[in-house]
């Protein structure tokens, strides 16, 4: 296994024969334990679904289920607009991250030019910078550029925060691509930019998917940057909208739970589709 990325077929699970549980009693006990853990891990989903199907009074005082809270959702949380905002911010940021990181990763992995390793270290070192350490000066800078009242400021922040690790991932991935395939491109008459676009980029789709899902979940679920850098309520993402409501403490809890479900759904869908790529991304930093 070359490079740092784990290949697609390499999902967790023993390489050869798993340890078989042969004693039926142990097997059932284990299965039962798994169910219990499952209940603990999925508890928030049960809670959200159950609560959202109650009215506020039935939540507080006990009582039957109804769709009252779902009907009230519209007036509490402009969720349609916010879902659109979240999607726009996510896609714009991820677009920038992918553009920057694939180009840089390809250059670091396959082209030699003076100063490359210094630039590489500079970009990768930024992984160590916590967002909270730069958020205050960045906020003031971006306020001075008058970018707090559009998507631009938040998109710039998300892009910059996501780029270092994405660049690391792409560099590792491109290093694992055999030089001969790129040389075949040279022989076939391509220039370096076209080799990047027509050979390297299509070959790196798995790595792109990994970056996409990592960043999507990160940006979709983020509160801090959105809270500070999306000053117009009409541009708020759904997570920021929810966070602002939740901090208010006076809100109708069942409605909040309905909103939470709405906000979580896209991330869950992306998660379920791209699960294996997310696993690759989470363990890519180990390097093998």
């Amino acid at each position: 296994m070359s490079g740092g990325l784990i290949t697609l077929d390499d999902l967790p699970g023993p390489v050869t024969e798993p340890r078989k549980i042969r004693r039926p009693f142990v097997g059932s006990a284990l299965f039962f334990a798994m169910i219990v853990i499952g209940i603990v891990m999925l508890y928030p989903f049960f809670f959200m679904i159950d609560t959202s199907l109650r009215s506020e009074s039935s939540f507080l005082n006990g009582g039957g289920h109804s769709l009252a809270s779902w009907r009230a959702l519209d007036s509490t949380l402009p969720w349609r607009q916010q879902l659109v905002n979240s999607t726009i911010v996510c896609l714009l940021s991820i677009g920038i991250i992918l553009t920057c990181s694939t180009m840089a990763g390809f250059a670091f992995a396959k082209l030699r030019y003076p100063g490359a390793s210094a630039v590489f270290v500079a970009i990768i070192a930024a992984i160590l910078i916590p967002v909270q350490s730069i958020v205050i000066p960045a906020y003031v800078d971006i306020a001075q550029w008058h970018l707090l009242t559009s998507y631009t400021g938040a998109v710039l922040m998300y892009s910059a925060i996501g780029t270092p690790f994405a660049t690391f991932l792409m560099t590792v991935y491109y290093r694992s691509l055999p030089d001969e395939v790129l040389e075949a491109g040279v022989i076939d008459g391509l220039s370096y930019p076209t080799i990047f676009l027509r050979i390297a980029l299509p070959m790196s789709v798995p790595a792109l998917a990994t970056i996409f899902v990592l960043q999507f979940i990160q940006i979709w679920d983020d509160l801090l940057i959105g809270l500070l850098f999306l000053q117009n309520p009409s541009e708020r993402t759904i997570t920021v909208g929810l966070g602002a409501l939740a901090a208010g403490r006076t809100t109708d809890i069942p409605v909040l739970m309905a909103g939470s479900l709405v906000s979580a759904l896209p991330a869950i869908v992306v998660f379920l589709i791209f699960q294996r790529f997310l696993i690759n991304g989470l363990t890519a930093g180990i390097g093998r």
Partner: protein
Amino acid sequence: MSSVRFEYASRIYAAGHRPAVDRLSLEIPDGELCVLVGPSGSGKSTALRMLAGLEPADGGKIFIGDRDVTDLAPKRRDIAMVFQSYALYPHMTVAQNLGFALRVKRMPREEVKRRVEEAAELLELTPYLKRRPRALSGGQRQRVAMGRAIVREPQVFCMDEPLSNLDAKLRVSTRTQIASLQRRLGVTMVYVTHDQVEAMTMGDRVAVLHEGVLQQVDRPLDLYDRPCNVFVAGFMGSPAMNLLPGKRVTDGVEVLGTVVPVSRALGAPGANGAVTAGVRPEGLQLAGHSEPGTIPVTVEFVEELGSDGFVYGTVDTGERITVRSPGRSHPSVGSQVGVRFEPAQLHVFDGESGERL
């Protein structure tokens, strides 16, 4: 179609180090299949990559036909290359792989389609045109790599160890296919391999390289019969030629205690007449133990190949030698046998320079 000419072409990776290719001069006539052979690090692949334009020449010139291509980009050299790993584009189908270079050249769609189908027909790839490389066997991938070169109808084919990823059996059948394909297309081919059997069986001529320096270029049998120095003698042929220390005496060469007569005129060896005597396993004859004029050898190991066999043994003075033993009755391990030189098959090299005398 064109000839290829290297003129003192050099490649130096790092200043102060031994050049990867050292002033290579080699002329390959139009339509020839020339094999570059040598151990790893001999510079054979580098020389090929210089011809393809993947490595710059740090000195000298390279010509394809009458064109000086030394400073041309690969795409303008009119060459095609088959890589060791095949380097197929994994995201394209076989048909797309085959046609890619043509599409890059903006050749009309119809023409591309025609050429791809022709090449697929020739290489029996037609049923696989819609598949991706991943779904092909090793041999099929190899043929796609060949096809990708063929569709371009280039002046020169560059082959960089194209068979080394195939299993032994497939390698043998594919090498004859490549050689006959080359003859049929009549195209100049430069073929790099580290396998001397491949070199012997495929090449119109074989160029042996060692540590960046061209040792000898010749037709395969000439190379086998008249190696120009100790390196070529030891590299070509399997099992390897026996190379034994000897001494020039008046009527021949003294080796392992006997004098082997040499009738032809020998050049003068260097210091105090020391020479290296070379003899291939089939240049030695087995005889009974202590027959007059034989060298006593203790048999250590016998390799039976069915049609014949090879006897590996040790001489009293410690040298190891290999002798071909025809037929099926071979001496047993541990026994003592006598070994006799066939004088006509003796190669004599200078003891110091290693050059043929």
